[in-house]
């Protein structure tokens, strides 16, 4: 069942621009929200993650914004680079209940044009 909705499906950004990917979840019990980056032919790799006790987390050019009341979170990539071109997945996890049940969004294919 689709519990995490991700948009857009694809995104094209110019080099130096800001890439924004959005996710919305349904289950209020989710308490861990990671973002994964996947290059073609490779497995997803953890990029950045946030817990709902904070509204924003920044690591380098990557920032997660989290809105608990709206049940939404987003990934912002500042100063986007061609090397950022990849597919990005958001996910949501209820750590306190069942740590075998991470729900993934459908993915966003990001293309950064030079």
């Amino acid at each position, binding site marked *: 069942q689709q519990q995490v909705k991700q948009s857009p499906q694809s995104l094209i950004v110019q080099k130096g621009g800001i890439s924004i990917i959005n996710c919305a979840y349904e289950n209020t019990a989710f308490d861990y929200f*990671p973002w994964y980056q996947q290059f073609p*032919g490779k497995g997803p790799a953890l990029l950045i993650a946030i817990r709902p006790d904070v509204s924003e987390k920044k690591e380098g050019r990557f920032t997660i914004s989290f809105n608990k009341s709206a049940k939404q979170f987003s990934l912002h990539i500042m100063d986007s680079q061609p090397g950022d071109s990849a597919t990005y*997945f958001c996910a949501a996890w209820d750590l306190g209940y069942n*740590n075998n049940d991470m729900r993934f969004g459908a*993915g966003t294919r990001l293309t950064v044009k030079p």
Partner: protein
Amino acid sequence: SQTIHQWPATLVQPVGSPLSLECTVEGTSNPNLYWYRQAAGRGLQLLFYSVGIGQISSEVPQNLSASRPQDRQFILSSKKLLLSDSGFYLCAWNPRGRNTDTQYFGPGTRLTVL
């Protein structure tokens, strides 16, 4: 440090043939192990997870099966492949226990059924 291996990296099999994909994790004990399938341009679908040797849970009814003969080994199998089994298969692990962090993915196996 922990590493996760999958093999083979790519596989082309005829319809009706058997399948065996292997995943091993190094540098940790008693991990949770997962098998995901990723269809082209789509998100991650959880197929199986295991919390211990011989303990397998299936998320969706399908033509595939999983086994965990050793603590750090997870095998995905099929007796007779279908065209619809084509996809990118990912193994993942995470430490066992509540409030553990994210899942870590292997490099994946690209399966093409002809």
